[in-house]
């Protein structure tokens, strides 16, 4: 009896999912939707001021202000960041070379003005949290769609925009999340909300896009919040003074710039 009921439930679930998939995606599969998100045009380079507000469960806030420069290449990207606030980290800089090549870890250096030397640091893993925030390095990067199996699981309206919900399960069984669910706006192919589930399948954290801006034809996420629900800790991240496709020179991404700043 129980087996029969389970069987019937699975048929209903399959039909529901199929119906949702067909209607919501207008012919797109989950993988195609995530590919569209991945292929959304992005600038070759960008600079701007990144502000992170870290807030713990008691409501205590810490504010980090960072001047950042990013340049994309066909198979790699370079990023250099200068901490401008709070004052005790002023002058600290961080540089990262990231590679698309499978298995190749990032190169990272840090310059601490008190030590007055550039130091190579371990890139650790993509599961490391960025500067004490709720974002891992993986959360902040563009995850290749081919790394996951994607399934459309529903539709929902967010801020008046009809979104497609896509569940992504990593092909790598050791991946830090058992699954993620992304709310994708098919008008702009932008993920507006994302939920991350831990290894036990429990909701770990939620990313919510607060605002986006159209700059030079690109849809840029300028304000977002990552809320780690299990610790009730959140990071508000905003990007200001964005300059896109300015033709940043390669010489910007060197240890010389780390020690003396951008001139």
């Amino acid at each position, binding site marked *: 009896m129980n087996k029969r009921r389970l069987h019937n439930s699975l048929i209903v679930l399959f039909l529901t999912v199929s119906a949702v998939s067909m209607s919501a995606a207008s012919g797109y599969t989950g993988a195609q939707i995530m590919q569209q998100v991945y292929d959304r045009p992005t600038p070759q380079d960008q600079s701007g001021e990144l502000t992170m507000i*870290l807030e*713990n*469960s008691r409501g*205590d806030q*810490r*504010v980090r202000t960072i001047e950042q420069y990013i340049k994309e290449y066909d198979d790699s990207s370079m990023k250099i960041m200068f901490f401008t*606030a*709070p*004052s*005790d980290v*002023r002058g600290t800089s961080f540089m990262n*070379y990231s590679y698309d090549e499978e298995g190749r*870890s990032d*190169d990272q*250096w840090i310059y601490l003005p*008190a*030590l*007055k*030397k*550039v*130091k*190579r*640091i*371990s*890139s*650790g*893993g993509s*599961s*490391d*949290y960025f500067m*004490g*925030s709720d974002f891992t390095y993986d959360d902040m990067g563009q995850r290749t769609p081919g790394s996951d199996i994607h399934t459309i699981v529903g539709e929902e309206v967010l801020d008046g925009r009809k979104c497609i919900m896509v569940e992504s399960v990593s092909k790598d069984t050791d991946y830090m999340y058992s699954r993620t669910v992304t709310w994708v706006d098919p008008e702009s192919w932008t993920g507006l909300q994302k939920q991350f589930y831990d290894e036990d399948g429990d909701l770990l954290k939620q990313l919510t896009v607060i605002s986006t801006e159209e700059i030079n034809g690109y849809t840029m996420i300028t304000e977002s919040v990552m809320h780690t629900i299990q*610790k009730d*800790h959140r990071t508000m991240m905003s990007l200001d003074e964005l300059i896109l496709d300015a033709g940043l020179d390669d010489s910007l991404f*060197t*240890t*010389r710039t780390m020690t*003396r*700043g951008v*001139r």
Partner: protein
Amino acid sequence: MTVRKTLIVLLLIATASLSYASDIFMFGEVTTETGVILTEELSSSMLQNTFDLKFEYSGSDSYMLFNPVVSHSMDREVSLDVRELYADIYFNRMDLRIGKQQIIWGKTDGLFITDVVSPKDLRQFLLPDFKDVRMGVTAVRADYYVDDITFEAVWIPVFTPNRLPEASSPWNAQSIDFSGSDQDIAAELMNSELFARISLYSSNLDLEVVGGMMWDDEPYPVGPETFDHARLGVLGGSLSTEVAGLILRGEAALYTGKPFRVSTVSLDHIEKDYLHAMVGIDYRSGTMMVSTQFIEKVILDYDQPLVADQWNHTMTLLVNREIPSQHLDLKLFTYLEFDEFNALISPSVNYDLSDAINMGIGAHLFYGETGTFGQFDDQDLIHAEITLSF
């Protein structure tokens, strides 16, 4: 003395006012720290208020830094040190820095192998923050850039030795009076110190090769309460790379012409060359960092007995855990010396009360009878500090 204090305050006020009237940016920190030596009397070793100010001007092709540090301690008068005061001029492929500056080389943490350009303030041994241990030197420094390679030259026209503890200081184990130890080094061109470095930072490997003609920052006795400094040559290098998620570091230097005492009952010395080398590994996982270093110092051509052993083996261990959600930073740094085993164990906890206020407590625990750290076995210290950054 009141005049001196007034002058210091007026100087700081005048400089600070410049930051409001121009493009000069001012920031810094105020620190109050206290330390207690763990003897039966719990004698206080340190009670110090420090006002560490930085004024910087940043232009498109120039930069200037003025870093005065005002200290007031329980047993010392108000003192004004200028940690750094320099100007940078930036060219297309070259940077020039002129003035009093800290110059820090090498890949070793907590010890000095090729990092010998700036002398050290050892009045409180190696216990203060290393930004306070390293002293500025008046120098002209030029960096020339060719792709990933930097050629660097440093000229130090006036010798500055290590600043050593007074004879009455608990950090002067043998109560030696070092005053006047740098009197013999006249400020002449021939007495200049010269250093050069070639460094490479690439995606696979960071590499430095260094060389120099220098004065030994550490004095050696040539008579009763009379000291001299030896002219040394140095040639060395360092590297770091990442392998399987680990940072591997190495550094080595050969020093020539270092005087070593022949016997404890005489002041006779003999010049020897020695090799100083380090291998280290850093491991990071999330907010946890573990780093260890193995350091060897060996006197070459050790063909007769000397007061110093031929070999010296040292190890350091750093364990650092940050807990961002609680604004906590836990750290344990340890020096271990294996010849007549002795050690310094320094645990500390720091808490960010806000973005501007940091509080810390910690200890420096010495173990052993003799050796670099064991000689201070009765100087175990606990300390606490609060820092306001602005």
